[in-house]
């Protein structure tokens, strides 16, 4: 019964969502990039010349503008830029979505515990959340890089996630607080259910949809931070991310001579983050009717 209720609410929400021009734009852009990311899997089919990392065109040894064989041109070692862009799309999605997912899991767990337990737990957890939320993630990643050396992409994803859970936990905590008052929670307590059981069996299902809706904002910050880190040269050298591409343009001194190399990765980062952000805002409007564009009577 609960499932059909959710499905119904989802479809009702979707109707409102998809009418919003912001949502339409966001979905469109995201689909474009998803296609790009998926296309990157087909790259090996085109031959070794198009491998984003190692694919060097035997005829070209320097950066060339767009041509028929290389639609976006090549970088300074002769690699195809479009291939790199597609690979970067894949990396961006992986980084964004997995980091956001971990953030959500952490943030939800902490938010629920803080909201349900209340008292000292709540105070301490939320204060920790406040502090962590204002800390600049890039700076922290930098100092960690100086201590532990080069990062592997998954480590980056994980560290970003543990720096970004506070925003989620606040929202989940409020939701938990209001759920706590509901009769069915009281009934469970009276029946002798343990706190753990109550939190995970009763509160969590009601709180998860909200958590996932806020995931989009986590994705944007993950993508931006990873890109910045790669740009500075501290990213995972085995991954071709858009930030990495920008690093190569910059370091090789080509940024003024090769706009076809400079522009695509930068625009992609911005557009993809914009798309996720627009989706998040549009979902916000679905949840909070006051934000909706049509005037109500």
């Amino acid at each position, binding site marked *: 019964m609960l499932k059909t209720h959710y499905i119904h609410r989802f479809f009702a929400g979707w109707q409102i969502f998809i009418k919003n021009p912001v949502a339409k734009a966001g979905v469109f852009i995201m689909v474009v990039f998803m296609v790009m990311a998926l296309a990157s899997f087909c790259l090996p089919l085109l031959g070794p010349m198009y491998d984003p990392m190692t694919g060097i065109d035997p005829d070209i040894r320097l950066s060339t503008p767009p041509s028929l064989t290389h639609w976006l041109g090549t970088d300074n070692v002769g690699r195809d830029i479009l291939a790199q862009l597609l690979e970067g799309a894949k990396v961006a999605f992986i980084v964004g979505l997995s980091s956001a997912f971990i953030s959500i899991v952490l943030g939800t767990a902490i938010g629920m515990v803080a909201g349900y337990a209340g008292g000292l737990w709540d105070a301490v957890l939320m204060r920790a959340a406040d*502090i962590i939320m*204002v800390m*600049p993630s890039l700076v922290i990643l930098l100092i960690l890089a100086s201590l532990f050396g080069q990062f592997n992409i998954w480590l980056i994803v994980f560290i970003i996630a543990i720096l970004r859970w506070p925003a989620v936990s606040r929202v989940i905590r409020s939701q938990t607080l209001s759920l706590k008052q509901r009769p069915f929670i009281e009934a469970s307590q009276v029946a002798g259910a343990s706190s753990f059981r109550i939190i995970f069996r009763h509160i969590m299902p009601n709180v998860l949809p909200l958590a996932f809706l806020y995931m989009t904002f986590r994705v944007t910050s993950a993508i*931006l931070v990873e890109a*910045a880190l790669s740009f500075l040269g501290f990213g995972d050298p085995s991954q071709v991310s858009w*930030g990495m591409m*920008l690093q190569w343009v910059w370091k090789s001194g080509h940024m003024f001579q090769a706009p076809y190399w400079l522009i695509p990765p930068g625009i992609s980062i*911005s557009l993809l983050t914009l798309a996720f952000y627009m989706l998040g805002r549009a979902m916000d409007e679905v949840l909070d009717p006051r934000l909706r564009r049509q005037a109500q009577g």
Partner: protein
Amino acid sequence: MKPGVFLVKLLEIALIFFIILTLLFFLFRLSPGDPVSKMVDPMLTPEDMDHLISQMGLDRPVWEQYLIYVKNFFTGRFGVSFHYGEPVKDIIKQRLGWTILLFTTSTVMAAFAGVYLGKIAAWKKNSRLDNIMSISALVCYTLFIPWFALLLLWGLGYQLNLFPLGGVLTPELWVGAGSFVAKALDLAHHMVLPLMTLFIINLGSYLLLMRSSMLSVLQEDYIITARAKGLGETVIRDKHAAKNAALPVITSVGLNLAFSINGGALTEQIFTWPGIGRELIFAVSNNDYPLAQACFLLIALVVLVANLIVDLLYAWVDPRITY
């Protein structure tokens, strides 16, 4: 704010900073590699090395080391930079001013502009102007800073040759006996591009925040009361609505710090603005741990203090807050 409450907040900051300091110490011990070679440049003479080692307590047991570490921090003994060969303290002193100049100016400008434009956008909600402003703000917010900075550098600096490509001053002008005005203008000239970058990036979030704050304020009853009194539209918008709507924007400056400091470091890097952010990046790439550590801790401290200032400001401006 009552002095007692202020004191408690100061203590809280001290405690949090302490925790950060401690965490960093443990991470340092946990990290791979020999702690001594991390903190002390192996290129120094043996006497200098020994002096530094004992100063930093690297030959003592861990817990003693920790106490010395904390004490050193508060007395300003951050060690000696590998790269510069100078005490880290001196380097930081030179850099801090530049960062504060750039950062404070851009934040204040962005906040004021954001409040002003956000107020107008909300007032003319869903009009063409509002849509243009909101979308532009959104784009600004999601711009990738290094890319945007590089574009500005390329466009205005390289192609149009309007602005210098980096640095903070033209050396010739400053070494000689140039006039104060000339020096100030030169500084301003160098500051334009990095300032513009940070300003535009941060403007987006302040505008959007002010706009949504204003939209909820406009639903409040006191706005209808103001209309019922016969007040003019501009008076209602600016005096009654905006003043209330701007309050959450003030707190957001604190929350936004994470985003703006990240951006600040990247901007400094690209425009070779000699600030703490750039120094940190430089230190990390060069394995200059003493310098990196000091930069990081300083930034952490700045974040905490800035939040306190924002709290104070908010308490001063909102009459409902009584601590």
